[in-house]
């Protein structure tokens, strides 16, 4: 049963991966029945002459794997065609009688899925914005090609990720081994080729393995041996020791978030770890978090159901993160994205098929929030693209590019998104 309800592509290559958790390892491909993202660690790239300047915000990137249904996340309740196309799974208008299943209005046209109600408060506080009818121009509707293209951020044959190129083109003077982290046991493709990117599953486990009693002594011997080597490895070993040291000082037991508790599941724990790292000021400039489970071909549900449960985790997780960081959200930008949206018309299995245009979320003190950025293309047949999908009127690189330039202080957008000229959406307040 579980295999049947998801698309063939997943049944072939990834069952648990996108559906229940983060991407699987290559070990799973070779010795299991699943497929992975990239190697846990990939060699670094060098781009010539980085921009030298102070760092800006910490960027937190949340990738919803599987193609999240943006039309049921940020609901265009003002478009009547939405309810024509989604008679069963549509989220009812904000003025509907049933308070717990109706959309939470944002601007009179768009509203949030009720499970995301905590985000409406952040939106009203001006620290969150949504972008709709956005995405990547890729037309394949293949999870892998779409993710690959989006994470590389370039249509040309370049296998480095957009975040790796951001790090390589911005010299912040930081030598931190933790400039970029991927939460989990592998790095996302967006960090492919990154300088000193670390796949970090748990703060507590990033250390020399061994018995507590001897680990310190062994590390001291290694430190001596590497210092005496007087080579490239002396530098990189010292970076690793520094990362171990930094992470070792972060108390991980009995962590008390400043606001509501983080959800127990994967995303909540990943966000909590990210918040701990930001608070500990260990030099994290980019953190990537994956959340699977969005490939809802069948039995997607509406205000309740499979997708709603995912959204509860997302909404609670983001709200906990926001409350936990408090004033520090002024130096954090968070973005939520997915490889593509889903078909406008619900299908016979009360789910949705792979589509095109989607929503994105941005959150942070430097965001021009309280708005939905959308040049709405409409949902009537003649307004759709491909087999019946939301058109894209805002390239996802305009969203990411705004953050990179205005919040992360990196003007080298042509290197981060080669072959693309980023349009200014006015999405973020420039830091300078």
């Amino acid at each position: 049963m579980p295999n049947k309800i998801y698309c063939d592509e997943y049944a072939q290559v990834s069952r648990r991966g996108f559906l229940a958790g983060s991407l699987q390892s290559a070990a799973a491909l070779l010795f299991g029945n699943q497929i992975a993202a990239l190697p846990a660690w990939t060699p670094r790239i060098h781009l010539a002459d980085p921009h030298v300047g102070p760092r800006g915000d910490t960027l937190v990137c949340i990738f919803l794997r599987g193609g999240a249904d943006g039309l049921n996340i940020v609901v265009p309740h003002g478009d009547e065609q939405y309810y024509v196309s989604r008679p069963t799974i549509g989220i009812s208008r904000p003025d509907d009688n049933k308070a717990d299943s109706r959309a939470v209005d944002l601007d009179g046209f768009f509203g949030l899925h009720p499970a995301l109600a905590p985000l409406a408060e952040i939106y009203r506080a001006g620290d969150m914005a949504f972008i709709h009818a956005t995405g990547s121009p890729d037309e394949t509707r293949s999870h892998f090609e779409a993710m690959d293209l989006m994470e590389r951020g370039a249509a040309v044959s370049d296998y480095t990720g957009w975040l790796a190129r951001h790090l390589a083109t911005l010299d912040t003077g930081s030598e931190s081994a933790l400039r970029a982290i991927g939460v989990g046991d592998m790095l996302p493709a967006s960090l492919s080729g990154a300088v000193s990117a670390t796949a970090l599953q748990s703060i507590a486990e990033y250390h020399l393995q061994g018995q507590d009693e001897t680990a310190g002594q062994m590390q001291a011997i290694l430190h001596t041996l590497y210092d005496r080597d007087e080579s490239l490895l002396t530098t990189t070993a010292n970076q690793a020791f520094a990362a171990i040291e930094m992470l070792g000082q972060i108390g991980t037991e009995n962590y008390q978030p400043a606001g509501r508790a983080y959800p127990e599941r994967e995303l909540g724990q990943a966000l909590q770890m990210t918040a701990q790292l930001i608070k500990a000021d260990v030099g994290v400039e980019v953190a990537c978090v994956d959340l699977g489970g969005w490939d809802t071909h069948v039995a997607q549900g509406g205000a309740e159901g499979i997708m709603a449960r995912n959204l509860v985790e997302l909404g609670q997780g983001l709200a906990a993160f926001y409350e936990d960081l408090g004033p520090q959200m002024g130096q954090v930008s968070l973005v939520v994205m997915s490889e593509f949206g889903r078909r406008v018309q619900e299908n016979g299995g009360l789910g949705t098929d792979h589509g095109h245009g989607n929503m994105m979320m941005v959150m942070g003190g430097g965001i021009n929030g309280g708005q939905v950025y959308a040049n709405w293309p409409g949902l009537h047949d003649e307004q759709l693209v491909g087999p019946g999908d939301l058109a894209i009127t805002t390239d996802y690189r305009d969203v990411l590019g705004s953050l990179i330039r205005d919040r992360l202080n990196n003007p080298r957008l042509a290197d981060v998104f080669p072959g693309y000229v980023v349009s200014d959406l006015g999405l973020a307040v420039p830091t300078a």
Partner: protein
Amino acid sequence: MLSRRDFLKLGGVTAVTATAAACSAVGRQVARRDLPESLALPIAPLPGEVTPPVAPIWRLLNRAGYGPRPGDYEQAAALGMEAYLEAQLDPKSIEDTAVDLLTHSLSLYHMDLGELTAQEGKDAARELGISVIGRALYSKRQLYEAMVEFWSDHFNIYLRKNKFMPLLKIVDDREHIRPHALGKFRDLLGASVHSPAMLVYLDNIRNEKNAPNENYARELMELHTLGIHAGYTQRDVQELARALTGWTVRRRGRHEGQVFLNEDSHDFGEKQILGQHFPVGRGKAEIEAALDMLAAHPATADFIAAKLVRRFVADEPLPSLVERVSQTFRETAGDIKALLRVIFLSEEFAAAPVKLKRPFTFMISALRALHTDVRPNRQIIRWLEQLGQLPFFWPPPDGYPDVAPAWASNLLPRWNFALALVHDQIPGAGVPFERLVAAGEAHDSQSVLDLLAGLTLGRALDDETRTLFTKYAGADSLDNPRTQQRLKDAVALMIASPAFQWM
């Protein structure tokens, strides 16, 4: 107590069958036959020397292979560089029972393309993993395996390109790379162009007369033959792409997966590539002529020479050696064996600077040094992934990088692999400490340290390092569990140390 330059006695070793769980059939086979009679500690430091030099033969075993197993150094040293190299250059002359057993245990690996296309990609990926790890670990044809790895990087294939890729890579490995890894470059190049894996990986199956795709043509010049700054133009890329139009893979039927020239989508028009005229209508012969031209181009000789020298001698290839290798390439029409002779018998190799072991070599050389049997499994793959070099999982077509800066930042997994290995925390990989210690007749912690330094580092520890380890291990009896634990830690530290990362 062992004196330096002394021979350790490893006599008295008999066939010991390790626990079945920790030891594969192949491993047992190797263990029975391969434990040496004696071991040498190759080189002791001179007084006042911090790091003793590495013997050229030790270097050869690490770079033209995956590091010595116990006894390999002595055997190679007895033969001498030249004789050892000649033997390695003639792999068929070296019996390789372990690999015969290993390949015998595989099933997809023996299927032809037609049978393979009905199989699951994940099974093919698993067999490729078992094959590449097992061969590196157990094969006596070490240089051959090192060259297969070299060409597998040069003609990189990424298994995750699509779900059929692992199936096609089996064919690529077996029929296109391996038969020519020590042959002539032109044959290897031709084989790769006719490999279904390559045509799929670099999108030539989408390269058609009316919708040309330049991807493969560009990489064929930039990465496979001429090198990026060889003076070819965008126009040359487009013209070569035209010559490649229609070279595709059968999608269905009895010959599914086979490469053929689809004349309907091939551009038969005349072409001009690198100044050479290709007349109308030659079809199949045209691409062969183009490959002849590319393989014979002086830029190709320079490019391949530099790559080989970078892999085997130094990150910054030495121009004098590159020039001699390139000249040999031109004189011998790309005879790979001849190139390797020039490289490994050169003065430059004898005095080569250190190279950083790539992660795969790091792992395999640690396993080999400690005579560790491994059943390739999930955990081993996970480690390779964390270390950063799981074979056939490098997405772009340039192959895993070959210079230290690419790899130097990821040391923690190397350290933790070393610790996990010696403390038996890698299922399927058990280090036979007791056998090694008994065979080495090491009766106190000092002599155990010396033995293990010899096996892992190929030389005696300098005094300062020796003191560090001795202090850590203590001087208690080897029966003391604490001492045993400490000695294992010390071996892990040797494998984690910079001396083991460099080769």
